[in-house]
């Protein structure tokens, strides 16, 4: 007789790894093949988790069709089952999974469309952060400015893609096929996604602004972020970039690091 922990481990692996032999021996048939009884549970687990992924990735689902999506979701769930009951957080690893999924090789833009969808999904489920009191920032000595690091708006995602993922995404918002096919050779895009009240906004950014904000979001200092932006874009307007950070409320806290930035 297995302990409860042993039984639950066997049950889990029968659902996720298809390894049924051991758990089948523990199940009463009651006039039916125990495998058919187990299949009821497996069906529910996979269909509900696939629906969770479909909710987060509706455009990916439309781009590949539902049957293929279910096939990819099935493989994903087996490898990356949820770890907790808050299912709005489930599926963050799906874009990277798609990038490594051999069956998706014909759709090289798919992982980036998925990254955009996850950014939107994430933003739509984040709580609004408290707005920063700007007076606090004014108390920082200008000589220390380059050592500032920022806690960015928790709903914010920044992404850069060699594909026109924003156009692909917009073209698939009405449920059906787009009226005109999106020109995949139209070039890449840098995007900023964040929550705004109860909706989500999607902005395209210039490459330099993207490099600057991305560096800050990765925890680099203001000095380091400015250098990175200036290195690749000599005409980057740092004063304006800092002003926009403030005006758009892109961060909700800041700190002074001991190391000199930049």
């Amino acid at each position, binding site marked *: 007789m297995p302990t409860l922990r042993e*039984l639950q481990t066997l049950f889990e692996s029968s659902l996720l790894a298809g390894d049924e032999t051991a758990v089948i021996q523990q199940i009463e048939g009651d006039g039916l093949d125990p495998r058919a009884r187990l299949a009821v549970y497996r069906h529910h687990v996979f269909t509900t988790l696939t629906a969770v992924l479909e909710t987060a990735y509706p455009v990916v689902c439309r781009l590949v069709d539902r049957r293929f999506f279910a096939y990819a979701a099935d493989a994903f769930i087996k490898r990356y089952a*949820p770890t907790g009951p808050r299912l709005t957080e489930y599926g963050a690893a799906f874009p990277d999974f798609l990038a490594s999924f051999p069956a998706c090789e014909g759709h090289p833009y798919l992982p980036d469309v998925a990254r955009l969808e996850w950014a939107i999904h994430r933003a739509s489920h984040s709580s609004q952060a408290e707005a920063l009191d700007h007076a606090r920032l004014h108390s920082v000595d200008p000589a220390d400015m380059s050592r500032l690091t920022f806690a960015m708006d928790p709903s914010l995602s920044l992404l850069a893609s060699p594909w026109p993922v924003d156009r692909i995404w917009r073209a698939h918002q009405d449920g059906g096929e787009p009226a005109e096919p999106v020109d995949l050779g139209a070039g890449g895009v840098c995007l900023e996604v964040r929550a705004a009240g109860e909706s989500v906004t999607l902005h395209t950014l210039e490459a330099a602004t993207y490099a600057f904000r991305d560096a800050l979001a990765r925890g680099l200092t203001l000095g380091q972020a400015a250098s990175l932006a200036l290195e690749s874009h000599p005409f980057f307007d740092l004063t304006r970039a800092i002003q926009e950070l403030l005006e758009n409320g892109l961060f909700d806290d800041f700190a002074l690091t001991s190391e000199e930035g930049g």
Partner: protein
Amino acid sequence: MTGQLGLPSRAGIGLRAPHVGELLTTRPAVPWLEVHPENYMGGGAALASLESVRREYPVALHGVGLSLGTAGDIDHRHLDRLRSLTDRIEPCLVSEHLSWSSTGAAYLNHLLPLPYTEESLSVVAGHIHEVQDALGRPILIENPSSYLRFRHSTIEEPEFLAELTRRTECGLLCDVNNIYVTAWNLGLDAASYMDALPAEAVGEIHLAGHAENDADGRTILIDDHGSPVAAPVWTLYERALERFGPVPTLIEWDTDIPELTVLLDEARRADNLLAAAVRRDDHAHAA
């Protein structure tokens, strides 16, 4: 521990996301509502809407994510989130399931079956104690829908539930559809199952629809909450009211969710049966 928790002896509905906006706009005369706390733990607009709902209606929280039957520890972060929500919403009642969903590694998003053994009893009772201590109130435990049973079970499910109420002073949420589905799938007698439950512990009743699936040429009933309550379940519900008295009752609908009015009509049907039970109850007390 039953009627005194603040829910009226009336029939309410499970409130799901597609109906929240309409409910807040039209304010239908539904006696009470129940929600899954998991849908409101991220804060934001969802939580704000639940607070608006709570200002207008009695609300019960019906958890699906605690995994009380997990052999190891329960998810303490999840319990903390439930406690915060409970503090904020002040629900009339909190309930969870007799089942497990997580091994600690993976969360399987289903109410999975337990073997009914002494070991399981002590695991589940320990977790119920922990939850009740954290929330500072008794909770109700719901009987699951089952599609299988384990060979090494030594206790019948209703006795297992009864023993949990004795050990933890928790109440029971009697899901009449689940009893019907389980009895059909495992070849049990639904009426005897119901009779074996401790009547005084039942603080809420659930009703929902089920689907019929073919499994190797045999019909298996699936508790999918995707259709009206089936005729034999209504009959069983009348028996439940006779045995448990006029207990607050809830209509659940989770797949192919119809218009709000369809749910309200189902609730009205249950409400009429409840009203008759209240009259019987009053009559019995007067006699």
